[in-house]
């Protein structure tokens, strides 16, 4: 692993709110090597999406910054492809056309028309969605749409793949299937991946490293856990692998003992402390973590 392929240094993110600035992230530092699979885990509203958006260039940090391969990130770009939480496919385009929009934009000059077509189909095959190439997002299931979202991101040949709870809305079976495909694809292409998740098992199974975030406001990296398990990983074999269980235990203990759910948790004094917690109003429907507990 080369040093600091992607580096976040002293990142602070303050949002303007009617009741003054809200410091979501403060002094967050993170180094990620090339080809690493990193999971971000933390309680709802702690600032995971904010971190991802800063790396994507969709949000600008108010202090500190993000450097990718020696260049400061300040605009979004296809080399940092994003898989959004809710697939975000254009509903008026077919599955094929959705991927085509990305491929057209990124490889307009470097690929011939025929090459582009083959490349689009190849990516749809990777996620087993080539059979529905001519369907609209409204005509396929949520899991299928999510796969197309992943295909679209992969088709950009990103050096960093950013995924915001990519499997959050899926049923357990589809989720397991997609996790396996993702592991395979990542092994093959060796992309750097940052994935947000609420699911402890998913984090341990897929990641090389798990970044556990403290509760907001002024959230930062709480613990950084390297997952040293051989690949390819098999979810059934992992179920009674003692090391796997230890990692799992470590994440659970961080989330439910060291960083209890906001309100009960002790908070480190920080700049954002004065904020009322009323602005963290997006907790509904996010009871994933509490449900596991």
């Amino acid at each position, binding site marked *: 692993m080369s040093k600091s392929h992607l580096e976040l240094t002293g990142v602070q993110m303050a949002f303007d709110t009617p009741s003054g600035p809200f410091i979501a992230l403060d002094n967050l530092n993170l180094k990620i090597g090339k080809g690493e699979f990193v999971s971000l885990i933390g309680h709802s509203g702690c600032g995971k999406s904010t971190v991802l958006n800063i790396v994507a260039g969709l949000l600008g940090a108010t202090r500190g910054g993000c450097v990718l391969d020696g260049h400061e990130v300040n*605009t979004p770009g*296809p080399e940092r492809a994003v898989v*959004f939480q809710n697939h*975000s496919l*254009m509903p008026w385009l077919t599955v094929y056309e959705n991927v085509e929009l990305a491929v057209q934009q990124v490889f307009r000059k470097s690929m011939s028309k025929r090459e582009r077509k083959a490349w689009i189909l190849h990516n749809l095959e990777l996620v087993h969605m080539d059979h529905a190439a001519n369907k609209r997002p409204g005509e396929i299931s949520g899991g299928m749409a999510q796969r197309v979202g992943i295909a679209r991101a992969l088709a950009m040949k990103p050096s960093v793949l950013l995924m915001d709870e990519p499997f959050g809305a899926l049923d357990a079976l589809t989720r397991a299937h997609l996790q396996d495909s993702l592991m395979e694809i990542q092994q093959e292409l060796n992309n750097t991946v940052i994935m947000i998740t609420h699911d402890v098992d998913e984090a341990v199974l897929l990641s090389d490293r798990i970044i556990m975030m403290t509760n907001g406001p002024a959230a930062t990296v709480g613990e950084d856990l390297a997952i040293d398990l051989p690949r390819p990983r098999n979810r059934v074999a992992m179920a009674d692998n003692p090391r796997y269980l230890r990692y799992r235990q470590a994440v659970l203990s961080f989330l439910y003992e060291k960083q209890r759910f906001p309100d009960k948790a002790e908070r480190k004094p920080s700049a954002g402390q004065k904020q009322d917690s009323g602005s963290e109003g997006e907790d509904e429907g996010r009871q994933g973590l509490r449900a596991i507990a």
Partner: protein
Amino acid sequence: MSTLSQTDTQTGPGRWLSLMGILFTWQRLASAAQQLLLPLVGILVFLGAWHLAAPQVNTSLGAFPGPADVMEQAGALWQEHQNQRDRAEKYVTMQEERNARILSTNPDAEVRIRAYPGAPTFIDQIGTSLVTVVAGFFLATVIAVPLGIVIGLNRYFNAAMNPLIQIFKPVSPLAWLPLVTMVVSATYVSDDPMFEKSFLTSMITVTLCSLWPTLINTSFGVAAVNPDLVNVSRVLRLSFWTHVRKVVLPSSIPAIFTGLRVSLGIAWMVLIAAEMLSQNPGLGKFVWDEFQNGSSQSLSRIMVAVLAIGFIGFLLDRGMLVVQRKVAWNE
């Protein structure tokens, strides 16, 4: 259902049940019939009530016309149109024959054919109104959609335009008309005008009154584009134009069409009022002329025009719906 109805077919309630079973089997047919039948019943009841009520209403021009009188006048208007057209054709053939004679004696002679100078018939007025409304609505669309997109995309522009839109939106065509008339006669001076001034006045009035719903809906639709899709566009680094073409426009097409349909309805209503007020050719002028004419048939003829206006408005809306089905992805 079928097992239920077979239990006791002999007794009264059983028979009813089996009858209902048949009815349910034919449910789809029945619902189709319903869709045809109920509107028909509605129309018939209306015609009946009209027929009974009309003679009770006495005006200075005699009793209010019933459906039969109106039908008769509709036929008469059509006949007048046919007669007029025959005369016009004869007039033109006469000229052609004369020109042929002149040319046979002198091949270099300059010949002309003049149009028939008769007054426009009811059908001609419908044609004029249709051309005017389509032109005015087209102009409104060409202005409102791009402007709406810009307003929807730019928060600052939106804030700047909003008070103007709120103030101009409720203005009645009657208020615009004198201003438009004066401005058109002052600015549109040409020896060989491409359009009649009256046509321009009506068209611009239609445009001014009908562009607001499209403008407002377009800007709302554009402002409401799913932010995640906007982020996709940013990640892809789509250029401004590609972003508008591939993301903003398709996603606001449903909202735009909702606005267009309201606009077209308004355009049609406004046009009739404008034509009446300004005596510009069209259906509105027909109504006004009949009103001034004050013969015993006038009321029936105005009623024919009223029904024609309503029916054409309905057809315009249907036409818009057909276009929407063709263009919009969510239909």
